[in-house]
């Protein structure tokens, strides 16, 4: 039974009385209402009778009691805040915060132009925040089960994200669920009925969504989908589940993009992706399709998007922002197709792997560049500066309280005290505690 406008409902744990103000919509599982209470305007999802099961009630209570992941990563989840009931009614719902839909939108709004298209830096932030939040969720032992464009909203100006529809979150490989995902995003083994939703199937959905964000196209929508006339369930199962082939597979052309104008955008945007991002997508949709354990993890995606964002370089001719690929010796502007001169680079070897940084004018070296596990990762520890007496001479100023150790190209060792700069010359090595770095041309 639906709720009535003006009806009173109870937030169980908060012991608050809420008044139903407006019906906002309806989904597979329930109806969504705007409510008013001591906490101001909030939203409730009210389950339909078949979905208002004891299991779902227990699942919501568990989510309410355990709460979202901690920190910024957790705050991005529009998490169930309380169980909502009506006396004498077996149905129930849950309370959540209201979303600012003027600011946050789905990807489709960007495609159709009502919202501005995020630039590369913003896109990197959206992807980074998303991967970070799902990693935090997975580390709590949960799986999300329905990662899709409809459940993730973002601010196309700032890159902030919100993750909605969190009531299907459950304990990885343990708890039962009413939703197995949205078929376009579901892992092949899930569609084939060989596995249940898990963090591994979440990783496939995440890769599909990241691909949609970057390429504006589904990774399996190629010749196979194009040639199907009746886009029914068996057809979808074939394309996504039983015979999935990545459209940009380098050797298997069964599902390549058809020679049709529909696919021009996908081709163009794929070519905008730096090589390192293309490699991750190839891994996700080649290895990852057949080997769930081999899927690209959230932390790898996270590091990649951080590194891409850190190395965005504007084209001096047209000012378009370009993403730099460390594996590529040269950079051509994606917009005006002119070559973009690259500044010297800093290659950092740290306990978690490698990191590359373009030493552009005023570039900042952050703690996380040299120590990815540091709690104060965003602290600036160094900055690219010019010699005030000779602007042709560039250096990296030590902004920490401790000296750095540097080794010059001729092998001589030198300490770089706080507030002093090490010159940017190829071959110079710098020690940052547990990490070491080398400047290259």
């Amino acid at each position: 039974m639906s709720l009535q406008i003006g009806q009173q409902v109870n937030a169980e744990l908060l012991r608050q009385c809420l008044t139903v103000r407006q019906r906002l919509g309806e989904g597979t599982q329930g109806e969504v209402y705007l409510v008013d209470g001591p906490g101001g305007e909030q939203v409730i999802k009210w389950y339909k009778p078949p979905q208002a099961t004891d299991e779902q009630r227990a699942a919501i209570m568990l989510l309410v009691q355990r709460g979202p992941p901690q920190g910024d990563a957790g705050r991005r989840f529009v998490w169930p805040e309380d169980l909502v009931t009506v006396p004498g009614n077996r149905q129930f719902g849950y309370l959540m915060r209201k979303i600012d839909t003027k600011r946050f939108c789905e990807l489709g709004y960007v495609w159709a132009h009502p919202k501005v298209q995020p630039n590369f830096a913003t896109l990197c932030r959206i992807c980074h925040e998303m991967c970070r939040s799902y990693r935090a969720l997975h580390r709590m032992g949960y799986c999300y089960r329905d990662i899709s464009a409809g459940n993730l909203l973002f601010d196309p100006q700032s890159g902030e994200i919100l993750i909605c529809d969190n009531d299907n979150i459950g304990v990885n490989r343990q708890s039962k669920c009413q939703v197995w995902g949205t078929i376009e995003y579901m892992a092949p083994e899930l569609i084939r009925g060989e596995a249940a939703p898990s963090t591994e199937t979440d990783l496939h959905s995440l890769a599909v969504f990241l691909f949609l964000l970057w390429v504006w196209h589904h990774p399996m929508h190629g010749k196979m989908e194009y040639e199907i006339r009746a886009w029914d369930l068996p057809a979808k199962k074939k394309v996504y589940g039983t015979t999935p082939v990545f459209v940009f597979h380098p050797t298997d052309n069964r599902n390549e993009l058809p020679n049709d104008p529909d696919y021009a955008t996908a081709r163009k945007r794929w070519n905008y992706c730096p090589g390192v991002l293309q490699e991750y997508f190839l891994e996700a949709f080649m290895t990852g399709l057949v080997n769930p354990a081999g899927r690209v993890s959230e932390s790898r995606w996270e590091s990649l998007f951080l590194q891409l964002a850190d190395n965005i370089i504007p084209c001096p001719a047209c000012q378009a922002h370009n993403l730099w690929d460390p594996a590529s010796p040269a950079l051509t502007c994606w917009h005006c197709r002119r070559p973009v001169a690259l500044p010297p680079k800093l290659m950092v070897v740290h306990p978690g792997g490698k990191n590359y940084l373009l030493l552009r004018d005023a570039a900042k070296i952050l703690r996380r560049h040299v120590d990815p596990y540091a709690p104060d990762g965003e602290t600036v520890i160094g900055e690219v500066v010019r010699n005030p007496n000779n602007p042709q001479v560039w250096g990296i100023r030590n902004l920490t309280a401790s000296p750095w150790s540097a080794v010059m190209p001729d092998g001589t060792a030198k300490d770089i005290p706080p507030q002093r700069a090490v010159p940017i010359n190829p071959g110079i090595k710098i020690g940052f505690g547990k990490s070491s770095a080398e400047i290259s041309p």
Partner: protein
Amino acid sequence: MPCQDALAVCSWSVAGTDYLVTAVADGHGGAAYDRSHIGAALAVRAASEEFQALLFFGAAPRAPEDADAEDLAGVTRAFKADFGRLLVRRWRRYVQEDAGAWNESAPPAQDADTSLFRRYGTTLLVACVGPQSVLVGQIGDGDVLFLRADDSVAQPLPADDQKVGGETDSLSMPDAPRLFRTAVFDHEERGLLLLASDGVGNAMREGGLEKLARSVSASALSGALVQVVASLPGFLERCSSQGSGDDVTISMVILGQAKPATESLPAGAEVVAPLAEDRVVAAGPPAPASPEACSDNQGGGGSRAAGPADGNQVDGLA
């Protein structure tokens, strides 16, 4: 110059549930779009047929136990995920077939914006009214509004603020699948859905379409629907001749206690009651009264009716 607007209304019963689909297309007109009247007709045909395919085959379950269940939410998800892409593909196929009938070859791949598809360029508004919700899609200009029982008016697809100077998206654009906007909203027992080509809205003062919707809704409740619909051709003629100078088309779906037409109507207006007793469609004419009323790049006196999508289709109120 032929009328470049096209209209389609059709209905299906899927697993015992009635659905009504209506579509309005507005060909761009002008020398570069010399077959846009055909493009518009093909657009309403493609939209109707794509909705038919969606309703019959499109839903995909979100859980194994839903596999055999009637899944209205599945239709909604498939509409948002697939409809724009499949509609544009179908429309392009029809355009290529039409071009073949003119003994012309298909456009060179990757060159759609400047070749054949451009000649057929059109906007499209389409809506599917189901038992609980309305699915609306739009590419390009035109108006969609829904008058609720409490007299409030919703615009499920607000105008694109980034467009200036009459610029509009088109089915002929290479990115058309992504430019196709969708919205889904629930409806109550009573309400009125209105789709209008831009020639109508451009001829009216701000709020004019809302006023029209309220007037028709009130007449439906009072049993005076026939008289109001009978006045539509004259009203639309004035919209064109004294206002926009454009082709004008309106399609309205009235939900609730409307009384079906019992009297004959003038040419160009029609009341259709193809569904349950409580649902009536009132459709206005797609063509202005005279060719002189139209500017040279926006339309003409003729009309082209959309080809029927199936036996139930009612269209082409010329």
